């Protein structure tokens, strides 16, 4: 069994990369490996949007990531610096920055890039999906 970490740079529904990453993550767990961490960076932070509402006949990416967390304990880490700039804030960041609403909820977590470095050092494999 290997510990996998994924780094996702691509926004949902703009590029295939987000789908590729989710497909890959499903394949990781289906083959008995551990899907340890997914780190959302660059435009990939939009995958964590709690406000995502795609049509019913398309895959719901945010739900896909949440399912990995619920069924396999995958950490869903969102870069806070990339997220804040792009409007991805949880309740505490929203109040910290004095903005009216929040757009990110558990199981997604806002974290620093340090967690990406940590994920790289503590996983057996790190695979990047980019636009």
């Amino acid at each position: 069994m290997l510990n996998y970490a994924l780094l996702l740079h691509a926004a949902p529904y703009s590029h295939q990369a987000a789908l590729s990453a989710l497909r890959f993550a499903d394949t990781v767990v289906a083959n008995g490996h551990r899907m340890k961490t997914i780190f959302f960076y660059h435009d990939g932070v939009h995958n964590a949007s709690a406000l995502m509402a795609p049509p019913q006949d398309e895959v719901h990416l945010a739900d896909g990531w949440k399912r990995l967390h619920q069924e396999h304990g995958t950490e869903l880490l969102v870069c806070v610096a990339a997220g804040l700039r792009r409007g991805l804030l949880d309740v505490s960041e929203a109040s910290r920055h004095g903005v009216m609403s929040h757009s990110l909820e558990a199981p997604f977590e806002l974290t620093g890039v340090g967690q990406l470095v940590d994920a790289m050092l503590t996983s057996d494999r790190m695979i990047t999906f980019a636009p």
Partner: protein
Amino acid sequence: MMVEGHPVALDPEGYLVSLDDWSERVAEALAADEGRELTPAHWEIIGVLRDFYQRFEAAPAMRPLVKAVKQALGEEKGNSIYLMRLFPDSPAKVGARLAGLPKPTNCL
């Protein structure tokens, strides 16, 4: 916050909304606000922080802050123990606030 009769806007965490509002009087008011009094030792570090931001357009993390202080003020001040004594809790964050730098982005 009012400084010398002028309003200075702060965000919910007490950082300046507009970095142009910074002045030494504002720094003193920010320090008083958290129960600190600025000594010459504090001002030296605030100077290093402002110089760092001028050069690099970013607030330093702890490690480069230590290095910048070492370069500017020498070995005896360029260490984390000295900085922690002056700015307890988090020298990089507290220092950035008092020096009128942007809020560190939480990356560290």
